[in-house]
């Protein structure tokens, strides 16, 4: 560990870019992302489909396809995990950093009993007997509100909400320091979603872990996150505390996105939306990725990509309207 001990951030991304190789050429799914989080923090990453949010999560966990190029540095507890040898990374993945995927049906093996999922995960990382592993599995399952008898069931015998709870139990059974939840409630109904979010929040406190919540749902992050990063077209366009993002958004995209979600205010019947469509990452616009849909577009936006501008400490806006250290936008009156 670096000098400074506990003051080291749990996770720090420095200029992380991810490129995929496809048949039609390279796709820049994430570009120059800088973000960090503290221990026990919940970081929400929001954006629409194809904005690079899942790519970022997968890059941290090192589970991108082989032909992918990841540039930059990812520090986990002060250690650059991108440069770690594969074998050493495998010791971290699943144990210190774990993941909750979106679709619990495809993430659980249909021909494996639940207990074997747990035993496999535990024995890969821990030198314990099968009985001890089973005891750990029972505790993890009870923690998410499922009767330990269900360990002998197969995934298809459970409802969608229960399967997602099993996924959570599996991700947390080794007491990770960081859990990455990629759209953990997207395929679930609202009532089940509320149940799952409650469980996640409760367990996060109990287990003292950090959590990255990747989602397109601004309602979900409003409930759970401490800090929020907004992504658009592979760029992290804004990062700040939850209150700042919702109450005083700076980036035109964040503003437009917040206005375009259907709210439940009965007096507000006006539909607002962003013209156009999110960019196709195969052919992104020059300069700022949002420039072709932005209501405040300027000439410079179309020619060069805005830098990460810190208008305050820990408050980033990637937009030409802002200047370092000033929360006032250039064309605000």
């Amino acid at each position, binding site marked *: 560990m670096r000098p400074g001990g506990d003051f080291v951030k749990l996770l720090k991304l420095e200029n992380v870019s991810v490129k995929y190789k496809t048949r039609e050429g390279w796709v820049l799914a994430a570009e120059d992302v800088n973000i960090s989080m503290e221990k026990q923090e919940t970081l929400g990453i929001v954006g*629409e*489909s194809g904005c690079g949010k899942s790519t970022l999560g997968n890059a941290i966990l090192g589970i991108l396809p082989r032909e992918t190029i990841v540039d930059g540095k990812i520090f986990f507890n002060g250690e650059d995990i991108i440069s770690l040898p594969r074998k050493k990374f495998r010791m971290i993945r699943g144990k210190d950093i774990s993941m909750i995927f979106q679709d619990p049906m495809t993430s659980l093996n249909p021909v494996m009993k639940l207990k074997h999922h747990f035993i496999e995960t535990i024995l890969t990382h821990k030198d314990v007997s099968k009985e001890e592993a089973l005891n750990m599995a029972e505790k993890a399952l009870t923690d998410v509100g499922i009767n330990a008898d269900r360990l002998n069931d197969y995934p298809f015998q459970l*409802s969608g*909400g*229960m399967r997602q709870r099993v996924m959570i139990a599996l991700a947390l059974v080794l007491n990770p320091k960081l859990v990455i939840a990629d759209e953990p409630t997207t395929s679930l*109904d*609202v*009532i089940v*979603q*509320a*149940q799952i*979010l*409650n469980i996640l929040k409760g367990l996060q406190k109990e287990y003292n872990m950090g959590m990255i919540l990747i989602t*397109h*749902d*601004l*309602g*979900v992050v*409003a*409930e759970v996150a401490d800090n929020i990063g907004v992504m658009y077209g592979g760029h992290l366009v804004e990062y700040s505390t*939850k*209150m700042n993002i*919702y*109450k005083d958004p700076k980036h035109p995209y964040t503003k*437009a*996105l*917040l206005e*375009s*979600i*259907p*709210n*439940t205010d*009965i007096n507000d*019947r006006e*539909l*607002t*939306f*962003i*013209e156009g*469509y*999110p960019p*196709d990452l195969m052919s992104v616009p020059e300069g700022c990725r949002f420039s072709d849909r932005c209501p405040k577009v300027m000439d410079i936006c179309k020619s060069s990509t805005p830098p990460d501008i810190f208008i305050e400490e820990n408050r980033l806006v990637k937009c030409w309207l802002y200047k370092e250290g000033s929360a006032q936008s250039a064309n605000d009156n």
Partner: protein
Amino acid sequence: MQTIIKARDLTKHFPVKEPLLKKLLTKERKYVHAVNGIDFDIMENQTLGLVGESGSGKTTTGRLCLRLLDATRGEVSYFGKNIFELEKESLRKLRKEIQIIFQDPLAALNPYMKVGEAVRHPLDIHKIGTPKQRYEKVLEMLTKVNLEPAEDFYSRYPRELSGGQRQRIVIARALITEPKFVVADEAVAMLDVSVRSQLLELMIQLKKEMNLTYLFITHDLATTKYICDKIAVMYLGNIVETGSFEEIYTNPMHPYTKALISAVPEADPEKQKEKIIPGGEVPNPIDLPEGCPFHPRCSEAKEICKREFPDTIKVSDTRNVSCHLYKNA
């Protein structure tokens, strides 16, 4: 105002597939009780929102209204005619007037068919107009859904388009025969938030221009506010409550509606609310609970709820609730 769709005691039970031997040995057949005797009316030029969780029977209800499925019991009448009694030829004619917008535009469009051909297809089937008139009609429709230049979009394939554009094509195809009644089954659910509101706005605008009546099926209560005149909440194949968005949202009466509304996440950290989360899981629609279908999860359940199915109580002209907690005014 005329009633365009009237459903009475509408019921659909799907037989459960069982092995042959079991079928031969046992007399008793099992059924999935998807829709259980629901009543509703849709007035001309109005939009009824059907809200519920997955498995509540809302999609089945939508398909019954178009006779894409036959009902087990009950009727749906379109301008007073029971659509389940129509002969083949008159049903074919009716299909022009009732249409559906599907949820997943990629699944609803043939990948080998050009956009223009897909939109023209209903005209070909119903033999409306000459080829030239059809072509022009397609261009007009593409322009209406804001896919411009229309000639350009005509010869493109669905895979070349974004999700929002594809859904515009599905809408164009549904509306090209100038229907009166359209079922929109989770029409905007698959789209990104920034695009979802665009499509919602388009549907509202087309409704005005073309005098449409919608049955708007959704799991997302918040979107109904913009487009629906009336909302019906479904749970396990029953309509538990009906009313306007305002009524349902500010003063939910049925315990299930209360839970559903409290569970909707608010995109505002200052507006977080107390959640009422019902215990347990949605029961299996094969073996429905006796009495009120919600009673095993209901915190306000009484003795009577376990025995008797609640009657529908008329609270006001616009408002119905089906729960033992309430009595007829």
